[in-house]
């Protein structure tokens, strides 16, 4: 069961499982007894079947286009974004688009190569659940989420950039 970090640094466990994309010609195997995250395009392909289910969420890979879910995001209990390599920054844009453009309000989870020093950026870009790579020291997450007390620019966490806050 994954340990999931919250933006305040607290840790909880849940049993969402990430279903990898099935190989060409194979079908998606969904566990009967566990909530599952499936590739977003497959959720759309099986929309009739999946919509409304609280035990099915989706995940995007970093090169995927979150635009495909526009208008439907809030039908999902969880959306995850995969960081295939911590240095791949596309997931930050995906996070902001889901939140700020498509108005997604449920859980946004960072999965994949999620390291301590990237948590602060994920938090600012709208992620509110982080599954740290297993070999990293989860007890340091809280510290790493809180090095900065504020930021210069607007992002998902702060709608008002510092230049407007200074003026008021």
């Amino acid at each position, binding site marked *: 069961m994954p340990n999931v970090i919250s933006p305040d640094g607290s840790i909880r466990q849940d049993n969402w499982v990430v279903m990898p994309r099935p190989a060409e010609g194979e079908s998606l195997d969904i566990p009967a007894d566990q909530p599952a995250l499936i590739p977003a395009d497959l959720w759309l392909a099986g929309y009739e079947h999946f919509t409304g289910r609280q035990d099915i969420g989706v995940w995007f890979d970093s090169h995927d286009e979150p635009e495909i879910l526009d208008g439907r995001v809030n039908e999902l209990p969880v959306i995850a974004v995969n960081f295939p390599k*911590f*240095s*791949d*920054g*596309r997931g*930050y*844009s995906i996070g*902001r688009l889901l939140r700020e*453009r498509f108005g997604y309000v449920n859980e946004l989870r960072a999965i994949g190569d999620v*390291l301590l*020093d*990237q948590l*602060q*950026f994920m*938090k*600012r*870009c709208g992620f509110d659940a982080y599954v740290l790579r297993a070999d990293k*020291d989860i007890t*340091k997450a809280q*510290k790493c989420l809180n*090095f*900065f*007390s*504020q*930021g*210069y*620019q*607007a*992002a998902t966490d702060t*709608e*008002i*950039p*510092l*230049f*407007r806050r*200074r*003026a008021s």
Partner: protein
Amino acid sequence: MYVYDEHDRQMAAERVAQFRDQTERALAGELAEDEFLPLRLQNGLYVQRLAPMLRICVPYGMMRSDQLRRLARITRDYDKGYAHFTTRQNVQLNWPALEDVPDILAELAEVEMHANQTSGNCIRNTTTDQFSGVQSDEIADPRPYCEIIRQWSTFHPEFAFLPRKFKVAVNASEHTDRAAIQVHDIGLQMVRNEAGELGFRVHVGGGLGRTPMVGPVIREFLPEMDLLTYLEAVLRVYNRYGRRDNKFKARIKILVKALTPEGFAEKVEAEWQHIKDSPTRLTPEAVQRIQAYFTEPDYAALDNATDLLASQRFENRGFDQWLTHNVDTHKKPGYAIVTLTMKKTGTPPGDVSDKQLEQIADLADEFSFGEVRVTHQQNVVLADVRQDRLLELWQAITPMGFGTANLNTLTDVICCPGGDYCALANAKSIPVAEAIQRQFDDLDYLYDLGNIDLNISGCMNACGHHHVGHIGVLGVDKKGQEFYQISLGGSSHHDASIGKILGPSFARDEMPQVISKIIDVYVDKRTEEETFLDTYRRVGIDPFKERVYA
């Protein structure tokens, strides 16, 4: 100049604490080499051939005397007593120890300096014209906009892991471009539209390195208040669609080329429509607040000291030459802009000792309201010197080695550290610069040759901007031997162009002779008024080829 408020100070301190923690975790083995790499790069720390190298940010080249003195102290306490001015208006230390870097950053933060984002795949220091605010032909002072961009880009959470590094430059002069904006990822030219409103012409996708390109215009007029939302749209398109599979194809220029400038511009416009009215849109109050930091210093009401300077020139030929070449016209009567050249033959271009840093600080206090600007040609500018004190200043700097009157001549070389310091080098670059400086040691001849940009890089990463030198020199490796390839006709100014390769490369000891032959062709072919670049553009590369390979 911009002064930190409590927000800036707080974030600077938090950044130092964060990097201290990261360094401790790296030294304790909790961060793998490749995991620590981007963290240290974004704090300016490279690991080089001989030692780590720390690149300290000088936002758009502006520094105060107290900051120079602190740099001097840092080079003494943590390094070998010298520093290097870079081609992006920053300062580099060549020998700091990794475990000292958090302390160095803490010392910098005390004087409102940092090394944030001076390296790594993020938005780098925004650069501009070193004559900003003191020249008469600028549309508006570009520095407040650079500071606005600095704040927006600092620790930007969405753009900390871009496909590749990202550099922005702003130019405000109508007639010159000293900031080389067309070879930046984003180049912003300040303009006024027909209604007289202030804005920017936006170039995207310029750059040097492996695939040199002049950045095409993707928007003719961007209204002033839309600056940040538009930048955010450009960066978002790049972050999402820039190539990440091949490091050498990851700069935004490759994306712009693949989509075509029109196609790229369309994508940016589409993104921008969603965010252009977001709270990130600037407000007149926010701009004015930053502009208030860049007000004029307390100038005296003076007349131009024309007669005095004329008689001083008449009596002193060295002063006359220096005045002609290293001193520029100021917008205020009675003042002048002075460039201190860091290009004395025998010293690596841009290198300064701790003592020299302190001398520069003293000069700034004595002659120029305590401020200096670093130029991308690796020189230092005192922007506000009284004309009636120019002679005194010249007498002071001559023994210090800052008075070489070769600004913008052939021996005012731009040169990267090359094989003497850099692990990526194919060849040394500093000795080539020096050999050429020795060959052309006659100032009168240099003046006769006029403005020639000679730029030298030790490999195709192009830190020395060789592609945009009127004469460019590139170190290449030929079966393990150091060789040098020459290109002609590059320019980083308004008429930006990428130089053309002359032909097969040369051994190091041939270089001064080869440069002489190139110069001879120019001298033979030129008309009265022509600069080197004019002649080259008129006659083409063939006459040069014929002479050099005869």
